[in-house]
C-alpha cells in the first residue's frame, strides 16, 4: 500500500513519436464512470478490458512498471475503439486518440503475430489504397455472389467446417451492388434552384462497391437542396481503418493523397467536405492531428479537417426542405459510435428521420451502444463481436421497428448479419439503411405524387 505509484523500474517502451501522450494519460482520474459504458467490460466483466484498465496499462508501460506482454497486447486488441467511454468521461480523456497511439506503437514494434501482419500488408496496404484494385476486388466479389458460388458455399456449410473463420468473414462480406458508384456520377444530378453551396463528397473505399445507392441518394438529396456535390477523381480510401489498426504510416500517406485531391493548392476550397460514413468522418476530422508534425501538410490538414461535415450534420446546418412523400414504416436508429461518441452527432440524423411523413422512430434502450462491427474488429475479434451483436439485436428486436437505420457501412453490414441470424420472425425484411436514403426516398415519392 502506498500513496503514489512506485518509481519506474525500466525505461519507457515507446519507440515512435506516435506514443500515447503522457499528459493525456494523466487526465484520467480513474473515477470509473466509463466502466458501464464499455461493451467489452460489459461482456468480459474484467477491468483489464475496460477503458480505465487499458489506460492504467498504458500508464504502466509509460512508467516502465510492466512489460508489453502478449497479455497486455490482447487487452489493447480487444478494445472496439467505439469511444463510448469518451461520452461517459467527465474528464474528457481523449481515449480514442490514446488507443490509436498505443496501436501505432504496437504496429511499429510488430506486436502482432506474423500471419496477421502479413495479411495486413497484403490487404490493407496492397489493396485498400488503390481504387482500381478495390474495384477489381468488387468485381471478384460480385462474381462469387452472382455465380451462386456463395450460395452453394453457405448452403453446404463446407466452409464452416473447413475454415470457420473464413465462414464468419463470408457472412459479413458486403454484397457487391452493381452498378458501382463512380466519382464522375456526381455530375449527372441537376441542381434545384440557385447554388447555395459547393461540397466535395468523400466516396471512400467500400461504399461505391457495397452501398452505391447511399452515395446516389446523398448526391440527389443535396442537389435538391441547392448544394452542388462533386467527387474529386483522385481521391483514395480515407485511411480510418489504417489509423485504428495502428498503421499510421499508411494512414498518413492516404491522408496526404486526399488533401491533394480535395484541396489542391488553391484558395478555391469547397464549402464542405462531405462524408456519409461515420467512421471515415471522424477520422477525416482528425487529419489535422494525424499530420501535425508534417511541416508540409500540417496546415493544409487542419484546414481540410475543419471543412469535413457528416451528411446529417451538414443537412441540418444548411437547412433542408421538408420531404412530402409518405413512408409508412417504423424504424429504429442505431447511433454509429463514430458519429455519436466520436463526433457528438446525435440529433441531426433523428431530425432527418422525423422530417419524413408517415415514418415512426422507435428508439431502442441503448441506441448508442456499439453493434460490434468496429471496422475490422468483427473479423479479427469475431467472438466478442458476435456477443456484442447478439445483445444489440436483442435491443433492436424489443422495439417495434421494421427496419434499422444507421450511419456507417460497417454498422449496416454487421446489423444485416444480425438480422439474418436473430430475426426469427422475419420482421425486418429490408436490409438496414441510411437516413439519407430514406430522405431521398421520401423526396422521390413526393415528386411522383406531384407528377
Amino acid at each position, binding site marked *: 500500500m502506498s500513496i503514489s505509484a512506485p518509481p519506474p523500474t525500466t525505461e519507457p517502451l515507446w519507440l515512435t513519436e506516435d506514443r500515447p501522450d503522457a499528459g493525456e494519460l*494523466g487526465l484520467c*482520474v480513474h473515477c470509473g464512470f466509463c466502466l458501464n459504458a464499455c461493451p467489452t467490460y460489459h461482456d468480459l466483466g474484467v477491468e483489464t478490458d475496460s477503458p480505465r484498465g487499458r489506460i492504467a496499462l498504458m500508464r504502466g508501460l509509460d512508467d516502465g512498471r*510492466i512489460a508489453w506482454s502478449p497479455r497486455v497486447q490482447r487487452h489493447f486488441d480487444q478494445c472496439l475503439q467505439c469511444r463510448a467511454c469518451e461520452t461517459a468521461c*467527465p*474528464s474528457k480523456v481523449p481515449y480514442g486518440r490514446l488507443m490509436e497511439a498505443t496501436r501505432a506503437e504496437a504496429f511499429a514494434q510488430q506486436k502482432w503475430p506474423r500471419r496477421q501482419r502479413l495479411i495486413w500488408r497484403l490487404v490493407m496496404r496492397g489493396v485498400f489504397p488503390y481504387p482500381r484494385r478495390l474495384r477489381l476486388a468488387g468485381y471478384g466479389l460480385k462474381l462469387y455472389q452472382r455465380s451462386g458460388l456463395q450460395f452453394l458455399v453457405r448452403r453446404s456449410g463446407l466452409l464452416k467446417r473447413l475454415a470457420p473463420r473464413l465462414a464468419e468473414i463470408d457472412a459479413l462480406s458486403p454484397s457487391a451492388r452493381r452498378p458501382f458508384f463512380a466519382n464522375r456520377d456526381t455530375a449527372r444530378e441537376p441542381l434545384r434552384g440557385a447554388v447555395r453551396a459547393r461540397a466535395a463528397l468523400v466516396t471512400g473505399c467500400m461504399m461505391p462497391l457495397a452501398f452505391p445507392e447511399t452515395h446516389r441518394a446523398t448526391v440527389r438529396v443535396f442537389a435538391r437542396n441547392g448544394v452542388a456535390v462533386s467527387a474529386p477523381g483522385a481521391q483514395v480510401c480515407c485511411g480510418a481503418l489504417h489509423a485504428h489498426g495502428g498503421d499510421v504510416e499508411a494512414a498518413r500517406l492516404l491522408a496526404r493523397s486526399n488533401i491533394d485531391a480535395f484541396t489542391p493548392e488553391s484558395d478555391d476550397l469547397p464549402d464542405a467536405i462531405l462524408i456519409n460514413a461515420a467512421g471515415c468522418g471522424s477520422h477525416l476530422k482528425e487529419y489535422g492531428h494525424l499530420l501535425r508534425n508534417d511541416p508540409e501538410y500540417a496546415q493544409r490538414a487542419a484546414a481540410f479537417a475543419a471543412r469535413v461535415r457528416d451528411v446529417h450534420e451538414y443537412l441540418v446546418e444548411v437547412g433542408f426542405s421538408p420531404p412530402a412523400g409518405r413512408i409508412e414504416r417504423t424504424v429504429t436508429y442505431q447511433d454509429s459510435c463514430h458519429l455519436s461518441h466520436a463526433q457528438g452527432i446525435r440529433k441531426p440524423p433523428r431530425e432527418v428521420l422525423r422530417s419524413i411523413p408517415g415514418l415512426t422512430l422507435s428508439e431502442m434502450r441503448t441506441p448508442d451502444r456499439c453493434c460490434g462491427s468496429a471496422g475490422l474488429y468483427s473479423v479479427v475479434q469475431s467472438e466478442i463481436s458476435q456477443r456484442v451483436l447478439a445483445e444489440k439485436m436483442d435491443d433492436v428486436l424489443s422495439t417495434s421497428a421494421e427496419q434499422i437505420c444507421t450511419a456507417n457501412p460497417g454498422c449496416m453490414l454487421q446489423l444485416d448479419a444480425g438480422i439474418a441470424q436473430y430475426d426469427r420472425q422475419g420482421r425486418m425484411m429490408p436490409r438496414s439503411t441510411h437516413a439519407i436514403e430514406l430522405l431521398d426516398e421520401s423526396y422521390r415519392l413526393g415528386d411522383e405524387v406531384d407528377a
Partner: protein
Amino acid sequence: MVRELIEAIGEQAVVWHDEDLLVYEYDGTIDRGNPDVIALPKTTDDVVNLIRIANRYDAPVTPRGAGTGLSGGALAAKGGVIIGMNRMSTILDLDVENKTALVQPGVVNLDLGAEAERHGLAYAPDPSSQRACTIGGNVAENAGGPHTLAWGTTTNHVLALELVTADGEVQWIGHETRDEPGYDLVGCVVGSEGTVGIVTQVLVRLVPRPTAVRTMLAVYDSVRQASDAVSAVVASGIVPAALEMIDKMTIAAVEPVLNTGFPLDAEAVLLVEVDGPESQVEAEGARVEGILNRFEPREVRSATDPEERETLWAGRKGAIGALGQIMPNYYLLDGVVPRTTLPDVLDGVYEIAERYRLPVANMFHAGDGNLHPCLLFDEREPGATERVLDAGGEIMRLCVDAGGAITGEHGVGLEKRDYLPWIFTEDDMDTMKSLRAAFGPTENFNPCKIFPKGHGCGEAGHQHAQHQIAKFGPKAFV
C-alpha cells in the same frame, strides 16, 4: 491459492498476472493497494467457495464492486484476494405491487433505476457515480446522492440482504416487511464497508416516480448568499428532492466541457429540485423560488424540459471528473456539518486551501450539510501529495470542530480511519469492533478499513494522518 481459486470458479474468472493486477490497484481515490489475486464469482456458491479457500490460506479478502469508491474501501490494503462482484449483475425480480426489487450486488445503480422507471418506479439513492457504481458497493458504503435529502441514504432503501459471512455461511438478514422485530441487523450491514461479510443479494425498496419535477438554478455573487439561501429553504419546512451547491472553481471545470449554462463569473450556483404531484410541485416551486429570490440572486431560472434538467444535473454529477481539466489529481473530501454552520465552515475551507496554496473546488449536498471540498494538485510535483493530505486533515478537523463528522456518504475506508478517534472514544470503537466480531471471524475481511491502525496494516499508508493527529493533539475527541 491461485490454483485452487481457478479450480473453484474457472480460469476466466481469476486474474493473477502481474500486469493485470496493476489495473486493480486503485479505486476513485488517490490511495493504492496491491492485491495478490482477483476472483470474479457468478453465484453465491462461488462466493462461499472463494471465502473458504481464502480462509484456508489466511488471506485477506476485499470485496469490490465497480471500484468507483471514494474512501479506498475497495483497495486490497493488505494484499490478498479481491472478490469482484461485478459479474453478479442480474435484477432477479421486480415486484411492482410491493415496490421492491431483488438484485444481485453487481447491478449498476443506474441500470436498476432504468428498469424501475419502466414500471413507473424509482430507486432513490443516486450517487454521482450512479452510471457505473454497483448496488453492492452502495450497500457497503451506505451511499447517498443529491436525491437522498428527501428520501434518505441507501440504508433507508434496503429491506433485506443475503450475506456470506467470514466463515463462509450464507445468511438472510431482514425481511420484506418494513419493520422487523428485533435488532436492525440490516442496518449494521449497510455501511459496514465490507468488513463483516460479502452481500450476495439485496432486496431494495423502490419509490414511486414523481409525476412532476421542477429543477431550479439560482446564481449568486457570493458563497455566503448561496448558503444563507440554503438554510432559509430548509428552515421553511419544504424538503426539496435535492439542494446542491456548486462553486466558482467547479463551474470553471464543468462549464467548458459540459456546456451546462452555469455562468463562469458567478461565485456559487444552487441547484434545487422539487418533485411530487403536479399541484404540490407548482406550489412548492413557487415558494422555493420566492425564498431563493430573497438573497439577491443574479438569476433564478427553471429547467423547462427534461433535456435541460438533464444538462443541469450532468453539470453536477460530472463535476468531480471534470476537475481533471484543471489539475491532473484531486483529493475529494467528504465531511458533514450542521447546516447552520455551512457559511462559516466554507469560509474556513477556502482559508485552509489558500494557506496550503491549493486550488479548491466545492460541489456538494448543501441541503444535508454534506460538504465535498475537492483539493486539486499534481502528484508529480514534489511534496504536493503531502500538502494535500495535510490540508485535507485540517478541513476534516474543521468539520469535526463545527459539530460535524468525517464522512457524510463516502465511508471511512482506508482514507479516514486515522480520523476516527476525533469523533469516537476508544470505548466507542471497541464496541464497534465487538459488533463486527459478532458476525464471525472477520479480521481478514477488508482489513485496515474504518478502524485506525489495525494489526499488520503497516505504517506506510497513512503516516500523514498520524502526523495530523500529532499536530492537533493526541486526544482530540469531540
